[in-house]
């Protein structure tokens, strides 16, 4: 099958408007005859389910948590971008579009990104109308801040809990529809397969996580808003339950999987403390607005710090290496995530890491305390030369901005970040790869849609901060509800989809067979044992830095590990009960397949772009080297073993932006 991205013709700025004007509409009375399944209730799925119900469709929504409000989107801290230009600093739809395409290393689709920038301003209006309590200025208007990789202040936020507030907004819209009976909510339900009838997605197989019951659910279309697969690395900033199962099962049923190797590594996470670690905690990157990143200039100081003989605060300014400010004077500490992450790893690999494991750099607020403190002293008419007073005033300002993050850091690390600089290290955070979708957000399976982090479309090889939330809500509130109508318009006479067909029988059987195998297997190792081993292979060989040799061996090792898993995993208990180990086993089984495809994709991509750095392809200064011939999306077709997947290429054409070497110097 040839990939058809269905990008509308015409000038970039008119594409979306023209497209909306030309797609089929479903008459409101007919919408009542149509059922849509939405899997996932994060920002993408939650907003989509609410909006589809608002439009009149019958919606069934699913999530594996006990409440829709707990989807992983709740954890997003920093903020959401929108080209409102409220600050009058020169922002515009075009600039947001430009920054996003450039930030993504020219590996995203122009038309999608432009539409994203176009609807971004609307998202803020929508959320405010729903009562999302964004930060405000004293005059009552909305406040903004800036994020890595851009030079304007376009990020809207709610303290360090923006994702929480946006999700609660979508959740409240969803609640309204549940209350009206237009959405039927299935929480603690895990989707385990997609059902394809006569070439169209017509339902799902789900497992009730409380009773273990396997259920059949049918609909005229299925939407996956199931999030990202960063947990393939075992350690990541994702919530523990985040998984690839829905996307992977869709892949096995015919949906192409795009750019699986594009992983974003976030530069400001709390470093790993030991083997017991179950997940990594992110410190919002907004901290980079005020924090300066450094390591000691001299090895002897590094050693003294590690040995506890020297405190970072005792080190003179001249003995510190503010390596981001040194290497990238134009953007300094605000370079994009991939650049900041790689630079930190480079310093640590060179032996300058400041914690016991040598995998940490400092994020220092001392200058911010003084800068803000002076301002406050001035405003309040106090003595600007009183250092202690200025520091105290400055700390209060910083506390107002990031207090909850500082508190979180202190709880985890047991060190007061107001007194000593924070320690940070990069960690796996977001996956830009995902299910391939066309401009309508439809996958290669008709009637199957993918939105939010589950699809691949808008971020290219690197995602700029505050743009995932934007994409999730854009897809859910403003894009999918239009585009899905075009498809559903043909279904007004179809009537309810029966669940007693051969396709449902077959899908249910395959789910049951897997479960049965896992339950009776009675091997010797726990699910986590295998997940951790997979994570080690992924991080060491498919992580921030990759090379052909490692990737080749990773493909082999993952396939072996998968075999071992199916032979030797132990899942206690039964299927007919609440059984978290079984749920985990089913997720890890899919990670073990995805991991292999991930490595295969990475091996093929002989260039460095975004978060993935192929050691063979770097410039003399150690910067990422992009190659024009890789200016495409890799979309993989399932062919049995992941290593046998078939590659399809979607060439990326840039008509409105000149493709330039990305530079932040």
């Amino acid at each position: 099958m040839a990939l058809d991205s269905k990008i509308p013709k015409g000038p970039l700025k008119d594409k979306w408007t023209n497209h909306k004007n030309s797609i089929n509409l479903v008459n409101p009375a007919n919408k009542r005859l149509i059922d849509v399944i939405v899997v996932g209730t994060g920002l993408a799925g939650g907003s989509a389910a609410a909006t589809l119900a608002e439009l009149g469709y019958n919606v069934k929504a699913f999530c594996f948590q006990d409440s829709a409000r707990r989807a992983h989107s709740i954890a997003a801290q920093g903020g959401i971008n929108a080209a409102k230009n409220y600050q009058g600093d020169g922002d515009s739809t075009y600039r947001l579009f430009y920054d996003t395409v450039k930030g993504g290393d020219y590996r995203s689709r122009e038309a999608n990104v432009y539409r994203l920038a176009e609807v971004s301003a609307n998202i803020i209006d929508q959320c405010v109308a729903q009562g999302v309590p964004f930060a405000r200025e004293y005059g009552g208007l909305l406040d903004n801040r800036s994020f890595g990789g851009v030079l304007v202040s376009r990020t809207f936020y709610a303290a360090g809990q923006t994702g929480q507030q946006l999700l609660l907004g979508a959740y409240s819209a969803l609640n309204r529809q549940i209350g009206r009976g237009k959405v039927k909510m299935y929480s603690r339900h895990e989707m385990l397969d997609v059902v394809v009838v006569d070439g169209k997605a017509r339902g799902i197989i789900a497992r009730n996580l409380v009773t273990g019951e396997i259920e059949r659910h049918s609909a005229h279309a299925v939407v996956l808003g199931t999030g990202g697969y960063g947990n393939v690395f075992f350690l990541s900033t994702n919530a523990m339950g985040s998984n690839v199962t829905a996307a992977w099962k869709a892949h096995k049923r015919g949906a192409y999987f795009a750019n699986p190797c594009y992983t974003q590594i976030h530069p400001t996470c709390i470093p790993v403390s030991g083997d017991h670690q179950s997940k990594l905690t992110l410190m919002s990157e907004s901290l980079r607005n005020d924090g300066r990143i450094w390591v000691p200039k001299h090895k002897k100081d590094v050693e003294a710090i590690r040995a506890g003989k020297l405190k970072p605060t005792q080190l003179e300014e001249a003995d510190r290496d503010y390596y981001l400010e040194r290497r990238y004077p134009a953007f300094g500490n605000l370079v994009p995530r991939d650049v900041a992450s790689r630079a930190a790893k480079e310093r640590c690999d060179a032996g300058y890491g400041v914690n016991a494991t040598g995998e940490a750099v400092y994020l220092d607020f001392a200058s911010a305390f003084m800068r803000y403190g002076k301002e406050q002293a001035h405003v309040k008419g106090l003595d600007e030369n009183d250092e202690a007073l200025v520091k105290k005033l400055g700390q209060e300002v910083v506390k107002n901005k990031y207090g909850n993050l500082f508190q979180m850091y202190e709880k985890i690390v047991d060190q007061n970040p107001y007194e000593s600089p924070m320690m940070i290290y990069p960690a796996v955070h977001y996956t830009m790869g995902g299910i391939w979708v066309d401009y309508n957000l439809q996958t290669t399976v008709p009637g199957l849609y993918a939105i939010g982090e589950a699809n691949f479309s808008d971020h290219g090889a690197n995602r700029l901060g505050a743009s995932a939330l934007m994409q999730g809500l854009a897809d859910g509130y403003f894009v999918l509800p239009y585009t899905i109508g075009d498809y559903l318009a043909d279904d007004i006479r179809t009537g309810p989809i029966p669940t007693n067909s051969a396709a449902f029988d077959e899908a249910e059987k395959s789910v049951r067979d897997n479960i049965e195998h896992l339950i009776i297997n009675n091997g010797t190792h726990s699910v986590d044992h295998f997940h951790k081993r997979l994570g080690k292979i992924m991080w060491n060989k498919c992580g921030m830095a990759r090379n052909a040799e490692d990737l080749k061996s990773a493909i082999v090792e993952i396939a072996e590990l998968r075999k071992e898993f199916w032979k030797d995993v132990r899942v206690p208990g039964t299927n007919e009960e609440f059984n978290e180990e079984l749920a985990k086993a089913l997720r890890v089984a899919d990670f073990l397949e995805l991991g292999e495809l991930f490595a295969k994709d990475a091996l093929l991509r002989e260039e460095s772009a975004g978060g993935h750095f192929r050691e063979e392809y770097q410039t003399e200064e150690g910067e990422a080297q992009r190659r024009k011939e890789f200016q495409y999306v890799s979309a993989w077709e399932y062919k049995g073993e992941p290593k046998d997947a078939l590659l399809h290429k979607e060439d990326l054409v840039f008509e409105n932006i000149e493709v330039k070497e990305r530079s932040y110097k």
Partner: protein
Amino acid sequence: MNLTLKIWRQKNANDKGKLVEYPISDISPDMSFLEMLDVLNEGLINKGDEPVEFDHDCREGICGMCSLYINGEAHGPDRGVTTCQLHMRMFKDGDTIVIEPFRATAFPVIKDLVVDRSAFDRIQHAGGFISVNTSGNTIDANAIPVNKHDADTAFDSATCIGCGACVASCKNSSAMLFVGAKVSQFALLPQGKIEATDRVLNMVKQMDEEGFGNCTNTGACEVECPKGISLENIARMNREYLKASLKG
């Protein structure tokens, strides 16, 4: 550290359940409480026993999913944290730790330490929203100015994570702090004022139907709330309710 754990084991909602003792060793003070349970479960699985079920997801203190009752306190001995943010450095070598599920009639046990908190969702379905179309045809966001103090106070109420610790620590199993926080968020914003009357009446009615107890102003909820939701919210809800009842 070496510890003795006494953990509530209950096969399902109909089982009676009992405390079972487990010794555990080599626990690092840097572990979170849930990581300590991971270690316990790994050991149980390796021995062929069934692991202890508990709810968790983000492990960052924000999703509200984790819900343990530790040594008689919701989310354990630390203040202002959820169970996933509770670290083992809060305990001493040799300690005995009693771990139970959140207990309230409206939160039935599903298995071991996992309880069903969907009553909270149903209260939200009854009115925890502003009735605005999600089509995006709303007015410009800056056309609704909000006084910074009100916006900040609304935000403070909105940070409730729906964990249920307030219910679990209340001797009457009252949900007033949770519902108060929800009602307050909207009551403080101009967008929420229009439907304020119906909202508070409907939510309170649903809260009562779910079997939550009454508030007798003991304040245990505020003490145990990991997000510092203050009793102010209950007072504000009572004012809103009174106003609404007088109108209604």
